[in-house]
């Protein structure tokens, strides 16, 4: 509710000069409104002046200014790697500082930061509520961005006194802290700093290791090392080559003595084999306790590329199954390395060791999202070859639908043709979980499931929403044909606290049983505390062959695992206890596979050659290919070459062998395989080895051109790729077009733009703001023809956080100086810091009210101004005023939301004003009514007097008649003789008396006055003259008759 007593400020006070118009308008209005009666005119002028004043005030942008004594303190906690040991100390500091809080209305918030800033506690009353050790983990601690934390803080403050308490070592390596501090100061925010002190006086770190970019097989690679030490010390340098420790002698610097400052070393490593060579140098101090405090900065990495023999990586889920293929390739002199996909980590640098990679019946869930991207980049950006062979867990049946790998492959994992396949149906049951961002993870996994199922499958999502009735299909069970629309619905889901599984699972069972799906599966994600499903639902699921897997997610022991485990066991599903929500997508990809078994077709068939591509060289047209026992159903892509198909009875062609160029690389899909089950006839085929050797060789990456020299270097947060190009005569190649990309550690791709900076010399820069490997790929083409690509890269082995050996006190003090904050030296002495002292300048909160003035003052005043001039009745005007005032008080000032007596007071005020105005019209009305009664009474009296007079006259006439007939007759005759007696005056009481009586009544009743109707009077006066003329006519007629008779007699006498 607004209070009228609050002070007001104006943002644009110049507009207030318009107030000078008020007296001018008042003067003009006196003349223009001269026609109105005085009171109405005065009211209109006052309203008009107020209207102009309010208009001027609105234009001046009035603001309500309110002072508050409340305080909001936001603690900024540095969680970067450089101060990771001090996290607990910082938490203790916040708790201790909150103990000193004296005002219950003060608010406390907390933001932690490293590379990014995260709000952990909204500013709220009651102190700091996050228990020690309960802070959720955050990502990307390899950088510090204090400015981001300050920026987020400034968005969190309310209209109170504002204080930021920054706990940090000040070693910001992302953005400009002081600019943000200045912004804070401009907003009246004070930043107190609690420095996190450290000084690593006994520290050694490996500043860098440099290896030549390109080396030859058999070379001795010179590695140059630069070690920095704060004091003289000794230790050992371990060199690892492709993950294996290189044995070195004493002379080869296995043991080193370091002086204070930089210490360069070099060592030569022999190279055997091709591909990228990864080197790692690690310094091991003799006395780690004494000589080295940060272990993370004791190593560096570098890599070189060796142009050598091509190799192929065969990733297999079941190596026994794929041994025939590996042996066939080896028999064709192809160097194959077969690896169980469940062993070891595959990253982009690993992949660069190989010219082609074969995914032999490998499901998608063995790889992380980053690895999916790496496989895609390997083909598209780095020119590698990728071959996928079929099986029960390959292609769409292996969860690859929606993956970046599916984009690369020459067949569409979705089945496009109309042939009815066995469908799958998946129902997801989502229960809100008490984990940070629980609903976020719920929607993410649901979307992941949508991505990985086929468009021919059904999917639906059930959760408890708070609509009446509770459980609903938030995504109705439907075919996943429009995945984008389904994902949009998922994003709109509001996942509520589900009371029981029974209702939800029963709905899911009903839905699934209503589909024609052959595979029906349910996935439940929950903390397990809803009531378990009834035995009947479980029985229905078993009878309906509906499997159910459950995922238990929550904090610690919060998950009620019994319930979830039982559901999974009874229905043939799997229970996944999940403590890390990041693993959820992989679980869902794996589980979603259950419904994709419909994509597997296990009818034996003889493949048909559709197109004699180069991969089928040696296969003759009339040659019958061996039978295959099955395949994974896919659809051909338009741009791909489908060399081999399965002809169905309905004429549909299912791709068996397809291939295409994908970006810089090549991809091959062989939808059958599964050699122990489907492809044993092929294994025994004489052309098996040759055919597969052709397929693999076609897909292999082209070797790098020899006339390019490429290397990288890094400086601060920028990396640089340098290319020197010469032709075979060592002449510089100028004006080359070098399309290139760099693949960053997070598997994002950044284009590189080369500039020629010298003869045959090209440079391109890129950001180095992540820890890990950066792989750059430069394509080479001549005369428009792609001639291969050359790779290089650099490695950022550890975060710059570990280079900082001392707290950046200067920066932190500058922050304090900029914002007028305080410096708190000791992080362990929160009690004396008085963090919650109310010594900040009074905080004024400004609230713009021009719109309120416009709505609730200007418009009502305008209405009243028009009303007072146009409405003739004061009564009507008073009603308008009353309505306006009630609306203004109740809704404009918000009294309607107040207590009952405030509402009553508003109505009374409006009524008083209304009645005050009405009083002006009511008095005349009362006067009128009272005056009428008086006048009517007087008129009655006068009428009585007139009647009395009339009666007197009549009595007089009557008595005169009784006095004697003779005298009377004589008088009548005399009167007749005079001929002037007016018969109308026989009962006349006197003209004056009658006229007075009529006049009074006319005045009082508003009737027509007798004297105002002259014509009627004349007509009345004319009546006697008419009678006289009639008498004259009779005489005339008599005379004329006499004359006529006399004339007739005279004529008859003759």
């Amino acid at each position, binding site marked *: 509710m607004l209070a009228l007593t609050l002070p007001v400020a104006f943002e644009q006070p110049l507009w207030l000069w318009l107030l000078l118009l008020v007296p001018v308008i008042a003067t003009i209005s006196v003349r223009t409104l001269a026609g109105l009666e005085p009171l109405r005119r005065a009211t209109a002028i006052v309203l008009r002046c107020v209207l102009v004043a309010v208009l001027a005030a609105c234009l001046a942008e009035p603001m309500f200014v309110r002072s508050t004594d409340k305080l909001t303190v936001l603690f900024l906690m540095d969680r970067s790697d450089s101060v990771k040991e001090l996290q607990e100390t910082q938490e203790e500091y916040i708790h201790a500082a909150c103990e000193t809080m004296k005002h219950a209305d003060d608010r406390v918030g907390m933001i932690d930061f490293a590379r990014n800033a995260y709000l952990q506690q909204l500013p709220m*009353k009651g102190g700091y509520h996050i228990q020690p050790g309960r802070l959720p983990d955050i990502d990307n601690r390899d950088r510090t961005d204090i400015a981001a934390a300050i920026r987020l803080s400034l968005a969190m403050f309310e209209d109170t006194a504002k204080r930021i308490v920054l706990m940090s070592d000040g070693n910001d390596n992302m953005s400009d802290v002081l600019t943000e501090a200045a912004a804070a100061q401009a907003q009246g925010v004070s930043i107190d700093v609690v420095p996190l002190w450290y000084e690593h006086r006994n520290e050694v770190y490996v500043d860098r290791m440099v290896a030549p970019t390109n080396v030859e097989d058999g070379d001795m690679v010179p590695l140059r090392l630069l070690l920095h030490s704060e004091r003289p010390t000794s230790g050992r340098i371990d060199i690892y080559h492709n993950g294996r420790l290189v044995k070195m002698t004493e002379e080869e610097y296995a043991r080193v003595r370091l002086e204070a400052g930089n210490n360069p070393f070099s060592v030569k490593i022999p190279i055997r084999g091709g591909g990228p060579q990864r080197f790692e140098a690690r310094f091991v101090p003799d006395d780690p306790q004494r000589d080295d405090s940060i272990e993370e900065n004791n190593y560096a990495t570098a890599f070189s590329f060796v142009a050598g023999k091509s190799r192929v990586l065969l990733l297999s889920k079941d190596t026994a199954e794929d041994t025939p293929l590996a042996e066939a390739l080896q028999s064709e002199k192809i160097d194959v390395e077969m690896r169980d996909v469940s062993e070891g980590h595959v990253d982009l640098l690993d992949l660069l060791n190989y010219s082609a990679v074969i995914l032999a019946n490998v499901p998608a869930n063995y790889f992380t999202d980053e690895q999916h991207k790496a496989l895609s980049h390997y083909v598209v950006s780095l020119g590698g070859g990728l071959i996928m062979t079929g099986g029960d867990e390959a292609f769409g049946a292996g969860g690859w639908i929606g993956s970046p790998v599916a984009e690369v492959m020459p067949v569409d994992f979705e089945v496009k043709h109309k042939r009815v396949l066995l469908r799958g149906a998946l129902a997801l049951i989502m229960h809100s979980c008490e984990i940070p961002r629980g609903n976020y993870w719920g929607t993410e996994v649901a979307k992941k499931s949508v991505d990985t199922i086929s468009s021919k499958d059904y999917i639906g999502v059930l959760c408890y929403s708070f609509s009446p*009735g509770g459980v609903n299909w938030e995504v109705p069970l439907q075919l996943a044909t429009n995945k984008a629309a389904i994902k949009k619905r998922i994003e709109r889901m509001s996942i509520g606290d589900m*009371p029981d599984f*029974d209702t939800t699972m029963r709905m899911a069972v009903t839905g699934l049983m209503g589909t024609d799906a052959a595979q029906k599966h349910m996935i439940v994600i929950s903390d397990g*505390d809803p*009531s*378990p499903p009834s035995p009947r639902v479980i029985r229905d699921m078993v009878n309906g062959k509906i499997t159910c897997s459950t995922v238990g997610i929550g904090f*610690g022991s919060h998950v009620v695992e019994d319930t979830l485990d*039982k559901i999974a066991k009874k229905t043939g599903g799997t229970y996944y206890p999940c403590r890390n929500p990041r693993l959820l997508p992989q679980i869902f990809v794996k589980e979603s596979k259950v419904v994709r078994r419909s994509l597997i077709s296990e009818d034996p068939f003889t493949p048909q050659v559709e197109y004699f591509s180069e991969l089928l060289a040696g296969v003759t047209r009339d040659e019958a290919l061996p039978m295959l026992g099955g395949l994974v159903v896919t659809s051909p892509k338009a741009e791909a070459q489908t060399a081999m198909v399965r002809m169905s009875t309905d004429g549909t062609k299912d791709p068996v062998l397809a291939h295409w160029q994908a970006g810089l690389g090549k991809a091959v899909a062989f939808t059958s395989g599964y050699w122990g089950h489907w492809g044993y006839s092929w294994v025994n085929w004489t052309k098996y080895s040759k055919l597969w050797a052709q397929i693999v060789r076609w897909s292999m990456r082209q070797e790098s051109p020899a006339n390019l020299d490429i290397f990288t270097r890094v400086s601060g947060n920028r990396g640089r790729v340098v290319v020197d190009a010469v032709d075979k005569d060592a002449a510089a190649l100028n004006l080359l077009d070098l399309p290139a990309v760099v693949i960053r550690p997070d598997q994002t791709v950044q284009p590189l733009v080369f500039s020629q900076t010298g003869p045959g010399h090209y440079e391109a820069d890129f950001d180095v703001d992540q820890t890990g490997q950066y792989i750059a790929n430069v394509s080479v083409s001549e005369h428009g023809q792609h001639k291969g690509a050359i790779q290089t890269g650099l490695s950022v082995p550890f975060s710059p956080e570990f280079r900082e050996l001392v707290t950046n006190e200067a920066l932190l003090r500058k922050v304090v100086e900029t914002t007028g904050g305080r410096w708190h030296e000791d992080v362990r002495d929160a009690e004396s810091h008085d963090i919650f002292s109310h010594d900040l300048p009074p905080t004024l909160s400004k609230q713009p009210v021009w719109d309120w003035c416009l709505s609730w003052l200007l418009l009502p005043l305008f209405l009243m101004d028009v009303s007072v001039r146009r409405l003739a009745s004061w009564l009507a005007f008073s009603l308008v005023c009353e309505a306006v005032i009630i609306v203004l008080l109740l809704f404009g000032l918000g009294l*309607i939301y107040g207590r009952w007596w405030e509402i009553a007071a508003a109505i009374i005020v409006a009524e008083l004003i209304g009645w005050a105005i009405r009083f002006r019209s009511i008095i005349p009305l009362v006067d009128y009514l009272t005056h009428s009664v008086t006048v009517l009474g007087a008129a009655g009296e006068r009428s009585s007097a007139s009647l009395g007079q009339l009666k007197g006259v009549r009595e007089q006439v009557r008595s005169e008649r009784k006095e004697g007939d003779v005298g009377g007759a004589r008088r009548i005759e005399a009167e007749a003789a005079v001929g002037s007696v007016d018969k109308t005056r026989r009962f006349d009481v006197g003209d004056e008396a009658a006229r007075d009586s009529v006049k009074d009544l006319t005045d009082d009743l508003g009737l027509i006055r007798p004297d105002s109707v002259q014509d009627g009077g004349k007509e009345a006066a004319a009546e006697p003259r008419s009678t006289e003329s009639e008498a004259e006519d009779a005489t005339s007629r008599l005379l004329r008759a006499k004359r006529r008779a006399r004339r007739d007699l005279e004529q008859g006498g003759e």
Partner: protein
Amino acid sequence: MRALSIPVALFLLAASGGCEPPALTDNGVIASFGGIGMGEGEFSYPRAITVDRNGHVYVVDKSARVQRFSAEGVYEIGWAMPEKTAGKPVGINFITDGRLFIADTHYHRVIVTDSGGVELARFGHKGYADGEFQLPTDVAVDAQGNIYVSEYNGNDRVTKWSSDFKFIKVICQGEVAGRPLLRPAALDIDDEQTLWVADACNHRVLRFDLEGKLLTAWGEMGRERGQMCYPYDITCMSDGTIMVCEYGNHRLQWFGRDGESRRVWGERGRQLGQLWAPWGATEGPDGLVYVVDSLNARVQIIRL
């Protein structure tokens, strides 16, 4: 004049109808307190409520705090449950001898405190056997001091305990009136010393004598009057009616003891007089009704 009448009419119409006045008197809300937060007098998803004989209101929320308010909703004191990592309480009940019984649900026990939060006793531990609990939801105490505790999640039952916290018997478990008991979410004992149970996931109300003999059962799932959707709390009112707090229908409903619906109050929403996923309601000594409006993080006080 005629030209002016149209804008005047429109203005008055907009002014009177454009703003939605909260029907403070129509819906009977006389006060509301709380709000989202962790400060004193604020709530983080409140889930249970009780009122003592002096009118003090106790609310337990999902931050595992118990807060005491005056009858007018003014914060007085608060305290935290001994542990909260595994989960938070969903049931609380005050009895006339001044003790507060809290169903510490996720720790499978009942904690007894005085009105200031000082722990007096605790009993029960995780398990499915007699004398053990699996997610207890509510506590009631009869005139003799016997204690009744409801549980769910695979051990859906109501058990009876002596006043010195010794297990006596199972009042009800398994098949009751044709359906297995499923999440008995709340208990209350009326002036006739019979036990009323809100059988939440069966959307019905059960009445037992104190030895476990079923006296009556009524209710079905639905949104209509007389039907219920997840009754999470039940209160025997001083006027003899049974008040049911419906989590799923976002409302309170009063029934006669024969199951006839007498009154419905509330609907889903954020305004006063509206509820969003209410978990509990109770009656104060002066006849006021206090309802925990969980997702709105407040308590509404109503007079009907």
